[in-house]
């Protein structure tokens, strides 16, 4: 690539607070693909928790904040299909009329990580080597709102990972934001279905592209001890990148 692509990382609040290793992995993969990454410090949450809780005003406040934070970026990349889909699917309908075009412009340059690497940069082999068998859970909003289906699989295949598809990879894991708390009676059995289907493939890892789904699945797995370890595909791929130099040493 003649000129390095400049990417603003939208880490998402879940990754920032609960699973920072996914954020680190995202940066490493983007840099392995030749990107220059920045991290706008004002960023917080996309607002989806408020919207799905029936509080669109609060969601609109965070939507405006997201636009203010990222509108100067060339490309905005998130390691979450759901948060990127929030920007794409809802922002132009949540903001005030005079912000609508701005919302559409920002949505037009907001991507899920694999979508950006594969569909925009045309980059599948990042130099990562993964010697493991995996099954892919297609997280709902990335799949249905952004069309993310092939991209994570192409990245994993290029790394040497073996993909074994499970039964119904496109069926929801049962997370669903507030649903996971308010409807645990259904949410947990749906996680069990997903973990069972993944276990049937005999793979080492259950990979997906949304931290919240993975936390829900891992939280359940810690109780039932069923199924392969849920892990973000970015974390798995980054583990297979050449080891970075220890802190303090010269590059």
């Amino acid at each position, binding site marked *: 690539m003649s000129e390095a692509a400049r990417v603003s990382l939208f*880490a998402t*609040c879940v990754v*920032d*607070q*609960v699973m*920072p*290793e996914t*954020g*680190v992995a995202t*940066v*490493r993969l983007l840099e392995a693909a030749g990107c220059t990454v920045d*991290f706008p410090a*004002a960023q*917080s*949450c996309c607002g989806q928790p*408020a919207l*799905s809780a*029936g*509080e*669109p*005003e*609060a*969601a*609109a406040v*965070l939507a405006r*904040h997201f636009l203010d934070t990222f509108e100067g970026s060339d490309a905005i990349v998130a390691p979450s299909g759901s948060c990127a889909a929030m920007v794409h699917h809802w922002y132009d*309908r*949540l903001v*005030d*009329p*005079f912000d609508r075009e701005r919302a559409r412009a920002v949505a037009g340059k907001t991507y899920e990580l694999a979508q950006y690497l594969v569909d925009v940069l045309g980059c599948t082999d990042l130099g990562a080597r993964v010697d493991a068998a995996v099954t892919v859970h297609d997280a*709902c*909003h990335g799949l*249905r709102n952004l069309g993310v289906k092939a991209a994570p699989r192409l990245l994993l295949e290029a790394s040497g990972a073996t993909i074994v598809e499970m039964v*119904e990879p496109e*069926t*929801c894991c*049962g997370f*669903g934001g507030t649903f*996971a*708390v*308010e*409807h*645990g*009676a259904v*949410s*947990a*059995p*749906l996680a069990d279905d997903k973990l069972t289907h993944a276990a049937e493939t005999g793979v080492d890892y259950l990979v997906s592209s949304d931290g919240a789904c993975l*936390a*829900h699945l*891992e*939280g*359940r797995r*810690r*109780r039932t001890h069923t199924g392969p370890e849920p892990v973000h595909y970015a974390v798995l791929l980054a583990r297979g990148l050449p080891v970075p130099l*220890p*802190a*303090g*040493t010269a590059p």
Partner: protein
Amino acid sequence: MSVRERDNIVTPGRNFEERARHAVADPELQRALGNLGQRLFTARDVAHDHGDLKDRAAAIRREVLADLDSWLRRVTSTLESLGVIVHHAATAHDARRIIVGIAHAEGVRTVVKSKSMASEEIELNQAFESAGIRSVETDLGEYIVQVAAERPSHMITPAIHKTLGQIRDVLVKVSGDAIEEDREAITQWARKRLRDEFIAGDMGVTGANFVAADTGTIVLVTNEGNGRLCTTLPRVHVAVVPIEKIVPRFTDVATLLPLLTMTATGQRLTNYLSMITGPRREGEVDGPESLHVVLLDNNRRALLGTPYEEMLACIRCGACLNVCPVYRRVSGHAYDAVYSGPMGKVLTPLLSRGSNGRDLPGASTLCGACTEACPVEIPLADLLVRLRADLRGTGALVGARGSAPPPPEGGVARRERPGEGYPWPLARAPVVTPPPRPPSVRSIMFAVWARVWAAPSGYRISTAAARVAVRTLAPGRRWSTTMPGVTGWTRSRDLPLPAPRSFRDRWAARERGDERW
């Protein structure tokens, strides 16, 4: 059976969550539902590659909704020119009164019914019973549900929540006959039994899958032939037709019909397709002497011009139920409503003006499988999101600053993007009862949270404080088994705790050169 008795039969529980818990713990139900999943996923696959058909069908449905009052006048005059007696029912109560009135006037003692969700919606069987009129469901699934004193759990396959053994037991109990636990044997037994009912029936009651405005043709789709018997043998035929069932042209049926059957059952054409154009005429050998059409509103017209108008495009195929992960786990009775699954979650609060099913829109993961499966492109998941707000009375201020976009042609902003519905400012639909003012504590908490997290240092400081609190209370732990306030989560899953260092802390350390990755 009485209404009260039926209410006692459905899955117990005061709300969706309690009924769902009961359903998930019912091994017989889970076994019955296991069969559903595999059978109906095939149906989805058959219908998968018909994008153009879906677009055309979606357009036909919106053509009617864009000017429903005119189409209603048109279909009324066409039907009347054929000798059909047309009734307009504003409410379910009106519809019951009209239909029971027809039965009394015609001296009807036995009614035979073809499967009709509209008749379930107006609770017609209960009305007949109160009036001392015998009413028999003739679709096998509906018949099973009726004799079991239950309500259909699925609009296409009403008894899908029962195993074969349970069905056999119900039929044995009601008839005293010896019936084998075998599909063929049960069907043969029912066929013989229902034959006598058809012959005894004075009045046939059906719904309608479509009514063509240009020809006045009522289109009925069945697999068992019972619809045809209900409309040809009895001397009176009453069709209960929700107003949105109109299609502009008879030829539109050619587009909608294959889409309906493919998404409903995976069939390219059903076993029986009845097209009824007026009552029996001079020289014809069968058909009813009189044909009544009851056009049912029941709060539908109130949805026109609101985002929920989209819901009236529904053709009752059941595809959204079949693909819904929640429905497939809990079955229809957990919804405690006539319409279940994703479409039921939207329709139940709307048709009842917010008095029923207020907790249903929240009982969704918003995965969007319903939106994807819908053959007429109803943005079901989006409507669930909007209903969550409208039922709370929130959302009035969204998009309210600045000038509104210019009103589009026709005065109503229709779908900006296929399947995605309206911009938010138009979401304030006066169709559900908002809760009392002032705003709830919950709304205030969300408002404060959003403002703090949208402030320059608000997010950083609030999350840092939360991290210190968690690390002090649970040092060294990444997962917790309990957490006040989210016991709905921790009852069945461990909860992830904030990491020792946030991503932004690690990013800052890297920027300073303290760590390298």
